[in-house]
């Protein structure tokens, strides 16, 4: 691992069960998480993201491979000797202690002097804006407040890495939005490395410095939110992060990193090819719904993707047009709504989609 890494996961596999019931929840994962980074593990439930987090926390130990923390191998270190703290999904606050006692627990277990603990707890209460409720029992405060206490408790011992296991999933929409901003602020103020687990792609995109997209115990892609959104590594990433249209076709030629693809539903697209791509033949193009525009079929330029409008769904900020293509598949176009302009198209209209330049990407097919 390099000196800039807070955590290095090196070829870690975690197998649960025995005999025929063996399942690799984490399957040979190698990834490095940099210091002061907001790093997100994103994937559907059962993809192994929580197991990976628990391996880093020390609640589970790898079947094979190693976990490095700040240059030291901690693979066999129990959780109470790792300078890593966790915010649990259900918060796991100690119900027999007050808010203050919860926040001070870690420092007390580290045998810090009483005066130092009191000072640090006061600072943490201020950080999460909970000064007024310091003496309350944890079952006497709201879910959002419990969340703040859980954060303060995990941050109080100033860990090298903070792990967050879907901490916002129990909150309602508005509170979740507030806490997202709050978490970003806390990470910036404390400078602690955050590893955040979520299945919510929007949460991952808005909060992360980098995202690791996981499925079936593996990491499929690691990159900035922009990279994983604009240049998904494969079909799964393209489908899991945001909506996307997947169009099969044939690559005619590649030049200057652009592939000219004839689509099997008719029409032609210039798609950005992955680095080092040179082959021809069958391929899949991925296109985000907001990167296409709809126009009447009559007068559409050559190469536009033609079809019939099946439905138009109004979403407030934008309208989703579902277009039926020649082979019966669905193609989605998303257009921003403008004030006092009625929907431009109606179900049954013959329409054509025009794609913005350099918006479509050729998917690298995995063997």
């Amino acid at each position, binding site marked *: 691992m390099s000196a800039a890494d807070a955590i290095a996961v090196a070829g870690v596999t975690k197998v649960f069960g025995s005999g025929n019931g063996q399942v690799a929840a984490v399957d040979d994962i190698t990834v490095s998480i940099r210091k002061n980074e907001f790093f997100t593990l994103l994937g559907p439930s059962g993809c192994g993201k929580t197991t990976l987090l628990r391996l880093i926390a*020390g609640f589970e130990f790898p079947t094979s491979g190693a976990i490095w923390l700040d240059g030291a191998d901690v693979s066999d270190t129990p959780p*109470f000797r790792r300078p*890593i703290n*966790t915010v*649990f999904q*259900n918060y*796991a606050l*100690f119900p027999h202690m007050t808010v203050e006692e919860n926040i001070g*627990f870690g420092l007390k*277990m580290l045998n810090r002097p009483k005066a130092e603990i009191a000072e640090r707890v006061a600072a943490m209460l201020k950080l999460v804006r909970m000064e007024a409720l310091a003496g309350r029992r944890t079952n006497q405060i709201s879910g959002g407040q419990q969340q703040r206490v859980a954060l303060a408790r995990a941050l109080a011992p100033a860990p090298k890495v903070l792990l967050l296991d879907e901490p916002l999933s129990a909150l309602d929409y508005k509170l979740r939005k507030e806490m997202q901003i709050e978490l970003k602020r806390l990470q910036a103020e404390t400078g602690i490395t955050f590893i955040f687990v979520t299945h919510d792609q929007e949460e991952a995109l808005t909060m992360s410095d980098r995202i690791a997209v996981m499925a079936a115990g593996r990491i499929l892609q690691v990159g900035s939110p922009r990279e994983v959104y604009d240049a998904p590594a494969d079909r799964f990433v393209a489908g899991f992060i945001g909506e996307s249209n997947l169009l099969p076709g044939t690559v005619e030629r590649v030049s200057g990193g652009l592939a000219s693809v004839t689509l099997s539903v008719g029409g032609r697209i210039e798609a950005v090819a992955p680095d080092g791509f040179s082959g021809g033949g069958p391929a899949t193009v991925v296109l985000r719904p907001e990167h296409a525009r709809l126009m009447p079929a009559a007068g559409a330029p050559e190469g536009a993707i033609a079809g019939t409008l099946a439905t138009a769904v109004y979403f407030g900020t934008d309208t989703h047009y579902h277009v039926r293509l020649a082979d019966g598949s669905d193609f989605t176009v998303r257009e921003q709504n403008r004030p006092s302009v009625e929907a431009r198209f109606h179900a049954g209209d013959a329409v054509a989609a025009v794609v913005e330049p350099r918006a479509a990407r050729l998917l690298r097919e995995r063997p």
Partner: protein
Amino acid sequence: MARPFDVRRQRGFTVVAAFCFALLYLPIVVLVTYAFNAGESIANWEGVSLRWFVAAAGNAQVIDASIRSLQIATAAALIATTAATLAALATTRTAPYRGQAATFAALNLPLMVPEIVTAVALLIVFARIKMATGYTGLGYLIAAHTAFCIPFAYLPIRARLDGMDLNLERAAADLYATPVRAFRHVTLPLLWPGILAGFMLAFVISLDDVVITEFVKSGGQETLPTYMLGQLRRVITPEMNAISTAFLALSIVVVTVFFLVSRKRD
């Protein structure tokens, strides 16, 4: 308008309920009342008096039996609660293991085995040990009471642990608590009401046991219930009522204290 089904509105419900409560509490009311009888009889009321309480308090055999009962109940409940706490921790705070169902069965089976069977079995085994060692002290009764108290102590402790999030101990470990300190600062304080309930239950069960005690006790080892049973075979005076009433009062005090303590904890 059709009303939803409500058992309290069924015809005859009040009568059945009243009958059941009368059957439960009327004999106790009669028993307690005659404890205060001034006369010699437990059937003829001859005015209010505390003479039978005074008599019981001055009866050396009653005092002797009461002290022995409390000694046995305290020792048995302490040992049983400790064992039950360890058993409950081992069966709920660990990853599922082979033979877990068998462990539960083994722990709870004493509740199903007829008491007389246990009593006879213990009589035979203890008789051999007595012959071999010559020891005839209270140890046999304490061991026997401990054995049948364990499942009673186990149930409330296990119930308390089942409702306790495993993440609490993980959180403690995550916050630098060694396993011993996590137990001391998180598990034990949260488990305390369950342990107290287990202890009280074991204590009360031991206190009024007759069958096993009758079989296991050596000569001169009367407990309060076996002493009362022996007396009832001879002359019955309101002294028995007075002892029973004192016994009842003790139980009520124990349960009330437990209720107040556990409510304060939550």
